[in-house]
């Protein structure tokens, strides 16, 4: 029997480490430490209700567990064979407790390929990875296959880059393998920069060996003997687990000189990012690894010809690599049987925002947004109305209700005006102002633009200024036209992928939420009531009892009135902070 405790960054922040210790203490006290193991695993994906504890083999799924619950779990569940009812997940639809993960809507539609080991194994123990077919794919490649066979297998699988672009992985490997002789490099792009996406972090924290194995397979395929992992410095736990995994693999002879006793040698080094979104772009990433400013360069030459230190370099994203070993062990045909015509396999999405089940999910390509948001995600928080889902991070776009039944794959998302990106999905409800959201992304881009090319450096700044005018109620209809024209110019003329896609949030919100822009510009009002300068606070004199709570709490002394008589808000003084609404017990204050 095993007790698995999620120790990804999210659950760790809510003391999952202490839970493991307490469980072990309780097991020792009960004399069960030999029969039952308490294991700290990678992310289960169900971050909304963390910390999560799962009991194997019966799959009992406990949520929001506190260290104090450890003794009860051991006494009741392990010793007494009775589930601890109060810790079971409660289905939001009917309020019933769900006994195990197999019966949770969150897991029913999922198919875990890249995340196959996350939440099942102890990421700091190589034996557990090996026990689940770990390094078997590498062994098979090195002893039974030629490098060309390996590349062929990946090509046939139809695997495409999971980091954003969707470039066919097998083709990338082939191009790098054909490049002139000399030193070559395999680079793992772990600079996960999209705000709201955390799949790469979870894979590195939960299954670091899969990345090592995949990099070696790639190295064998393209003829490289050095691998570099470029990882964000903001991910300390992932860095630590990766380092541990590298040391363990080296100690077992699965990494280093003459792997599996063959001629193949491979070593892996870690390089740190330092907080620059543009470094997720492969040419910028390569500059950064060379110790320079992370500015993108023109393509061609592609990294496959001249990358790191001018040597042929193959750059793959973490999630892409995580799918590689399982393609080798189960075969390209198996992988290609999942998904849609041109997007094979599965995709990991990070569900976040105004959704009930925030977390990490993996579904076959071709699953619809409706299935993801309403079935797996459990619908919109607090019963509000769905408004939009933002996919693809700052370079992506917003999809609306009419896209809910579109099967998700690389091409459909682009056709709908967004993109797959790394797989962040931020769900927004009726309270979110789409102009403010577009401005939020633009501000992010302005901050992260590397400054090398003018369209991105200056153009996005201008876009942001126009959006500022709109949200302040100072814009005219000409500004909307200007916004559209300038977005098009940036898209056509920026140097790198980041710049070319940077106006996407503006373009897609202009297309799908034009009415909302017009409301800001022509009617000077914000339908979602988010843009402060456009709001007017008022007190309903029929409800107000004159309790004076609002006037006492108002930081600007904008509320006036006599005791026990209806109060009024002076709009000239009001700073629109919302304090009065929060404090009023009679719901007498409104916004228009």
């Amino acid at each position, binding site marked *: 029997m095993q007790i698995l405790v999620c120790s990804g*960054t*999210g659950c*760790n*922040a*809510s003391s999952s480490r202490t839970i493991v210790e307490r469980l072990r203490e309780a097991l020792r006290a009960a004399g069960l430490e030999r029969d039952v193991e308490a294991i700290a695993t990678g992310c289960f994906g169900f*971050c*909304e209700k*963390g910390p999560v504890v799962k009991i194997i083999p019966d799959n009992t799924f406990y949520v929001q567990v506190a260290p104090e619950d450890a003794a009860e779990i051991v006494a009741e569940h392990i010793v007494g064979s009775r589930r601890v009812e109060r810790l079971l997940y409660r289905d939001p639809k009917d309020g019933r407790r769900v006994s195990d993960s197999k019966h949770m809507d969150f897991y029913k539609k999922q198919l875990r390929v890249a995340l196959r080991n996350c939440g099942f194994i102890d990421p700091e123990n190589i034996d557990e990875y090996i026990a689940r077919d770990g390094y078997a794919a590498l062994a098979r490649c090195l002893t039974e296959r030629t490098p060309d066979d390996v590349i062929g297998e990946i090509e046939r699988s139809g695997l495409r880059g999971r980091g954003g672009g969707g470039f066919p992985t097998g083709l990338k490997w082939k191009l790098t393998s054909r490049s002139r002789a000399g030193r070559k490099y395999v680079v793992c792009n772990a600079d*996960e*920069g*999209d*705000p*709201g*996406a*955390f799949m790469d*972090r*979870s894979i590195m924290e939960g299954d670091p060996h899969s990345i090592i194995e995949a990099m070696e397979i790639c190295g064998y395929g393209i003829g490289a003997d050095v691998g570099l992992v470029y990882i964000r*410095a*903001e*991910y*300390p736990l992932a860095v630590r687990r990766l380092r541990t995994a590298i040391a363990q693999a080296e100690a077992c002879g699965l990494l280093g000189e003459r792997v599996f006793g063959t001629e193949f040698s491979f070593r892996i080094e870690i*390089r*740190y*990012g*330092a*907080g*620059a*979104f543009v470094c997720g772009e492969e040419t910028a990433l390569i500059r*950064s*690894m*060379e*110790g*320079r*400013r*992370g500015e993108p360069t023109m393509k061609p030459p592609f990294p496959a010809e001249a990358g790191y*230190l001018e040597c042929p370099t193959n750059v793959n994203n973490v999630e892409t690599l995580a799918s590689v070993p399982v393609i080798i062990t189960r075969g390209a045909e198996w992988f290609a049987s999942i998904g849609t015509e041109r997007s094979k396999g599965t995709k990991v999405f*990070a569900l*976040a*925002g*105004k959704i009930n089940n*925030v*977390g990490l999910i993996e579904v076959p390509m071709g699953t619809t947004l409706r299935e993801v948001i309403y079935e797996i995600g459990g619908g919109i928080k607090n019963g509000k109305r769905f408004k939009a889902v*933002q996919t693809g*991070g700052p370079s992506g776009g917003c999809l609306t209700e009419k896209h809910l039944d579109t099967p998700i794959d690389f091409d459909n998302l682009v056709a709908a005006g967004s993109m797959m990106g790394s797989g*962040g999905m*931020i769900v*927004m409800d009726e309270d*979110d102002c789409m102009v403010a*959201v577009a401005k*939020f*992304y633009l501000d992010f881009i302005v901050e992260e633009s*590397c400054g090398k090319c003018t369209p991105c450096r200056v153009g996005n700044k201008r876009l942001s200024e126009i959006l500022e005018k709109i949200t302040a109620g100072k814009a005219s209809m000409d500004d909307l036209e200007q916004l559209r024209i300038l977005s098009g110019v940036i898209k056509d003329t920026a140097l790198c992928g980041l710049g070319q896609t940077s106006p996407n949030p503006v373009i897609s919100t202009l297309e799908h939420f034009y009415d909302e822009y017009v409301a800001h510009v022509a009617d000077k009002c914000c339908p979602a009531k988010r843009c402060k300068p456009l709001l007017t606070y008022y007190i309903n004199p029929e409800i107000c009892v004159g309790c004076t709570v609002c006037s006492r709490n108002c930081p600007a002394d904008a509320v006036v009135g006599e005791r026990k008589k209806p109060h009024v808000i002076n709009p000239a003084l009001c700073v629109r902070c919302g304090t009065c609404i929060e404090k009023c017990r009679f719901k007498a204050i409104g916004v228009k």
Partner: protein
Amino acid sequence: MSGYKIACDKLKELDAICEEFGDRPGELINILHRAQDRFGYLPEEVQRVIARRLGIPAAKVYGVVTFYSFFTMTPKGEHPVSVCMGTACYVRGAEKVLDEFRRLLKIDVGQTTADNKFSLSSLRCVGACGLAPVVMIGKKVYGQVVPDDVERILRELDGDRC
């Protein structure tokens, strides 16, 4: 080159750090990470020592330091407060949380309080979106923070404040 903020003997530690990375200019970012770990920030003199040691212009080091948001040239407070402004946190109200920190600490993003106790910054996604909005203070992660929590958090760290 007057007004050194860091004593000369401490600057010698930089030589050891550079040496560990083989004095290779390609390792500049790794070296800067280590130097910032050691000193808390990267003032001009630190950058000059590293530049000389690696045999590259100080301007190049400065260019790299200012390019990456992780590196800072101003010392952080004893409790560096970072409010996550990733999208998930943003739509769940991170802006209001940041405003509350601004109001109570009386500093803006990128500044440090006069007593060097707190500094305030916003950061990109920490990948704990399930806990949004997220605030990191030092290495500790605070999840599902609402503006009303801010005063309590600050008081926990520094009894005299608020």
